[in-house]
C-alpha cells in the first residue's frame, strides 16, 4: 500500500531517489559486515580463548609434574595420538557407528511414538508415564543389566544409545506437534482438512524447530550412551570406551586421555553436523537468522 505514496514522493523530489538508495551491504566475507564470516581474524574474537587455553595447558603441565600418577604430560598425549592414530581412529569409528546407529533407532522410535501420542490421547496416557520412569532411571545402572541380557556384541550398545536419545526427542516432538497456533488450526479446520493433512502440512513442520532443539542435545548424548555401554561391557571387542577401560586398568594415562580427547572431538563434530542440517532445514525459523 505504500508504493503509491512512495512514487508520488519521489516524483515531487526527484533528487531524493539517489539518497534513498540503500547503502550497498558489505560482503559477509568483509570485516565491515556486522556478522562477518571472517570475524574470527580479529584478535578480540580469538585472543580470549587462546589465552584461556594457554593458562589451562600451563596448569595441566604443572599438575602433571606434581602428580605424575594422575595426569599425563601433554606431550605424552600428543605422542600417543601420533604413534597410534590408526588404532584410535579404528576404535573411534566403532564408537561412532554405535552412537549413530543407536541415534537413528531412538529417533525413529521416538518420532513415531510422538505422532501417535499427539494423535491418540489413549496412547499418551498409556505410554507417557512409562517413558518418564524410563527417563529418570539412570542408564548407567541399566547398562550392566543389558550387557548381561544381550552379551558383548553391538546389541546392548545400540539399545543404550537409543534409550538415551529417545526421551528428549519424544518430549520435544510431542510438544511441537501439539503447539500449532489455534487460529491456524481453525483456518484449516474450516476447510475440513483431514487429520493426516493437518499432520503433514501443519503439525510436523511446526514440530521441526522443537525436534532440532532435541537433536542438538541428543547428538552428543549418543556418544555418551555408546561409551557407557562399552565401559559396562568390559571385554567388549572395540570402541573408545573399551580402550579407556583397558588402558586405565594398565595405568596408561596418556592413552586414556587421548581417547577422551578424541571423544570430545567427535562430540563437537556431531554438534557441527546437526547445526549445519538445522540451518538448512530451518532457514525460515528465528533460530537460524543471525
Amino acid at each position: 500500500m505504500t508504493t503509491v505514496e512512495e512514487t508520488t514522493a519521489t516524483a515531487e523530489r526527484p533528487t531524493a531517489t539517489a539518497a534513498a538508495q540503500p547503502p550497498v551491504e558489505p560482503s559477509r566475507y568483509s570485516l565491515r559486515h556486522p556478522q562477518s564470516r571472517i570475524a574470527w581474524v580479529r584478535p578480540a574474537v580469538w585472543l580470549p580463548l587462546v589465552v584461556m587455553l594457554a593458562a589451562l595447558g600451563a596448569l595441566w603441565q604443572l599438575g602433571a609434574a606434581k602428580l605424575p600418577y594422575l595426569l599425563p604430560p601433554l606431550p605424552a598425549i600428543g605422542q600417543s595420538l601420533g604413534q597410534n592414530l590408526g588404532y584410535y581412529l579404528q576404535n573411534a569409528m566403532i564408537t561412532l557407528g554405535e552412537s549413530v546407529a543407536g541415534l537413528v533407532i531412538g529417533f525413529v522410535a521416538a518420532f513415531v511414538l510422538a505422532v501417535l501420542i499427539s494423535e491418540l490421547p489413549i496412547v499418551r496416557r498409556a505410554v507417557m508415564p512409562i517413558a518418564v520412569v524410563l527417563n529418570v532411571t539412570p542408564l548407567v545402572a541399566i547398562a550392566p543389566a543389558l550387557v548381561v541380557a544381550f552379551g558383548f556384541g553391538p546389541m546392548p550398545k545400540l539399545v543404550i544409545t537409543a534409550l538415551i536419545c529417545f526421551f528428549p526427542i519424544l518430549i520435544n516432538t510431542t510438544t511441537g506437534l501439539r503447539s500449532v497456533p489455534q487460529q491456524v488450526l481453525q483456518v484449516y479446520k474450516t476447510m475440513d482438512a483431514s487429520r493426516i493433512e493437518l499432520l503433514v502440512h501443519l503439525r510436523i513442520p511446526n514440530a521441526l524447530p522443537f525436534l532440532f532443539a532435541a537433536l542438538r542435545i541428543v547428538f552428543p548424548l549418543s556418544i555418551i550412551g555408546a561409551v557407557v555401554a562399552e565401559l559396562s561391557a568390559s571385554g567388549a571387542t572395540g570402541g573408545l570406551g573399551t580402550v579407556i577401560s583397558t588402558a586405565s586398568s594398565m595405568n596408561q594415562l596418556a592413552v586414556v586421555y587421548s581417547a577422551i580427547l578424541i571423544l570430545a572431538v567427535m562430540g563437537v563434530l556431531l554438534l557441527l553436523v546437526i547445526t549445519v542440517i538445522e540451518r538448512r532445514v530451518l532457514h525460515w525459523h528465528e533460530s537460524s537468522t543471525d
Partner: protein
Amino acid sequence: MTQAVELASVRKVYGFGPSAMVALNDVELTIEPGRFVSLIGPSGCGKSTLLRLVAGLESADAGTVSVHGVTPEEACAAKLIGLVPQSPALLPWLSVLKNVTLPHKINRGAAGRRERIGALSARDESRGAPDMLALLDKAGLSEAVDKLPSQLSGGMQQRAAIVRAFGLQPDVLLMDEPFSALDEFTRESLQDQLLDLWDELKTTVLFVTHSVSEAVRLSDSVVVMAPRPGRIVDWIDIDLPRPRNQRLFEDARFHEYEDRIRDALHSAWRSADAA
C-alpha cells in the same frame, strides 16, 4: 432461494451451573447470498462466538445454524467457508505463494461435495482454480510472492491471509476482526482492497468488528449486538453507493449511519447495565 447464512433461535452457553455464561441467547439471523454483513458490539456480546458457530468450530446448544441450507460441518466439508482470523495465521515455513495455495491441496474431495449442494450450482459457471499470482498482485503482494511471512509487515501478512481466503472462492467468507491489530492507515488501505476483491467474487461476507466506521464503510447491513446475554439488538441497512472510496467520509449520510449505530450500541449498553 436458500439463504447464505441462517441462524434460528440459537443459544450457546459456556460452562454450567451458577458459573454458566450465556454467550448467545435466542439469536435469529438471516443473510442473503452476496451480502456484506458486519457484526458489531462490545466485547462479550458473542459476536465471535456467532462466527465460530457459522464456521462449524463450535456447535449451538439450541437452535439451528445453516449455511446455504446445509449444516456448518457439511459446508466445511464442501469448502463453502473461508475464514480470516484476527491474526494472519500464516505458516512461517512457507513462502507467501505457498501459503495461499496450500488450501487447494487440502480436502480435494470438496468440489464434488459442493456440487451436490443444489442451491449453489447456479451461482458459478466460471469456477476453476483461481490464478493466485494474479490475486496476490491485486492485493499488492506481487513483490512478496517468494518471501516468508516473517519478512512482511503486519499489514502485508494480513493481506496474504485475505488472499488465502479469497483463493478458496468461498461461498461465505467469515472475518473475525481481521484489521484490529493494524494501524489506522494500513487498516483503511486494507479495507479498500477487501472491497475490491469482494467486488469481483461477490461472496457473502460476515465481518466481525469493533469499529463503527469500519462497519459502515464496508457493509450492506450492520448487525448490532449486546452482551449479558449475547443477543442481536438492531439491524441497520447501510444505503450508501458503491464503490465506497475515501470521498465517502465527506458524505453526511456516512456520519448519520455512524451516529445511529453508536446510539444503538449505547442504548444496548445501558439496558444491559440496568438488567
